[in-house]
């Protein structure tokens, strides 16, 4: 990964941590900024897992409501604010996918007029979104270093919530192979977040 892009991304992680501190002080604008930054990532993620746009919208709302209500629950030693939010979204989406309620076919769609609020986006945030896009390009490029099988196993775990033994069964391969491929894939992914000179 390009050092410049990586340091921009690190800078953003710091900004995110500041936004979270502001959220802890009940600063609504900080939440709006965090939303602008990451809802374009969370929304397609949720959509990829639950497929329904309605559910995906609900999930994105729930995640940011959780961030608002439970900002003190962010475990700072477990990674960046971004990775925390993404994990919240992914885990909720997988829970939804497995829930009985979700499997029920019929559901009522309520409609409610949305209230328009002032656009709170700021220049730094627009930049942040653009850096995120550049970062995403690098990740996509790095993903090419993973074998098809490594990608498939990671995607089955991440987007479909399959356990390693379920994957072994579905792909008809030994559990040990699935575990090894998964570790390999994750290692290669991790390399993305390192600078070239420190990558193993």
């Amino acid at each position, binding site marked *: 990964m390009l050092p410049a892009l990586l340091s921009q991304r690190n800078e953003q992680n710091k900004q995110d941590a500041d936004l979270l501190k502001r959220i802890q002080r009940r600063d609504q604008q900080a939440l709006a900024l965090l939303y602008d930054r990451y809802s*374009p990532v969370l929304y*397609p993620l949720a959509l990829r897992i639950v497929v329904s746009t309605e559910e995906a919208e609900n999930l994105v709302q729930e995640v940011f409501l959780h961030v608002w209500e439970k900002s003190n629950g962010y475990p700072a030693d477990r990674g960046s604010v971004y990775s925390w939010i993404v994990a919240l979204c992914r885990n909720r989406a997988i829970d939804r996918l497995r829930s009985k309620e979700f499997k029920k076919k019929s559901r009522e769609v309520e409609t409610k*007029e949305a209230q328009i609020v002032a656009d709170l986006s700021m220049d730094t945030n627009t930049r942040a979104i653009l850096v995120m896009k550049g970062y995403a390009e690098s990740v996509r490029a790095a993903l090419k270093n993973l074998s098809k099988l490594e990608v498939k196993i990671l995607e089955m775990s991440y987007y479909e919530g399959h356990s390693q033994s379920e994957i072994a069964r579905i792909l008809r391969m030994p559990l040990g192979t699935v575990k090894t491929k998964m570790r390999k894939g994750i290692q290669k992914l991790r390399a993305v977040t390192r600078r070239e000179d420190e990558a193993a």
Partner: protein
Amino acid sequence: MKPEERHTHLELCIPYVFGRLNPGNRKQFETHLGSGCAECSKELAQLYEAMALLPLTIHQQQPPQQLKGILMQRIGSGKEAPEPVRIRTEQRMPDAAVSPPQRPWFGYAIAFVLLVIIVALGIYVNDLFRTVGAQEQTIVELRTELAHSAEVEKILQARRVEIVLLNGYEPSSTAFGRIIWDPLTKNAVIQVSGLPATPDDKVYQLWVVKRDGPVNAGVFTVTSEKDRKNFFELVSLTVGERYEFEGFMVTLESKGGAAQPTEPKYLMGTTKAQQ
């Protein structure tokens, strides 16, 4: 670190991050984390960072604009753990300035809108596809007798129905179609419009495009004038799992079908953003 130095809890980090530890192991692992194991904490942090990269490989897409307004309204009202508010589906407007709409995701939006309309109003589809492009403005209604057939209804009412739009290419650039399918049962309907009548010694062949290439998904012919306007066929997409499908295409092949598609592609559509 040498492998033999890794302590056993580290093995639990991956299933923990994916939420796949059984309750007993999870509790044990969390107790271990609570005891302040720096090694596992570090491993977890790195895993969460790495996993958070995966969604970046999906193309970014703004949620509907109203969602932010609703969210801000909810947090402004100061209610504890409020119920999410569902929003109108008719007004979705991806923010073009920040993130150009990714066509395949429109498929999902359309799938949802279509499902609602079908359940609510019956079988006719009008100008739902207006936003997708001029081509889709001329939407053909679902053929009544087929829409009434139990199998098609089953597909249309499936919880996770998906619609993939097919665009026409030379020599049939005015043709268009869609595949409506239930990824769980893999039952699908292909609907096409404007394809030239199939020559006697040829067939149209449907392909599922996977990461490692196209796979045969059946053949069909377009013969009558009625077919040319609006052709329906039930197909079974049992050639793989949803996550493997990158798109669909239709080619013209010799009778009996081909092992590999030949040029030109008559119709093509993708199931997700290109990676």
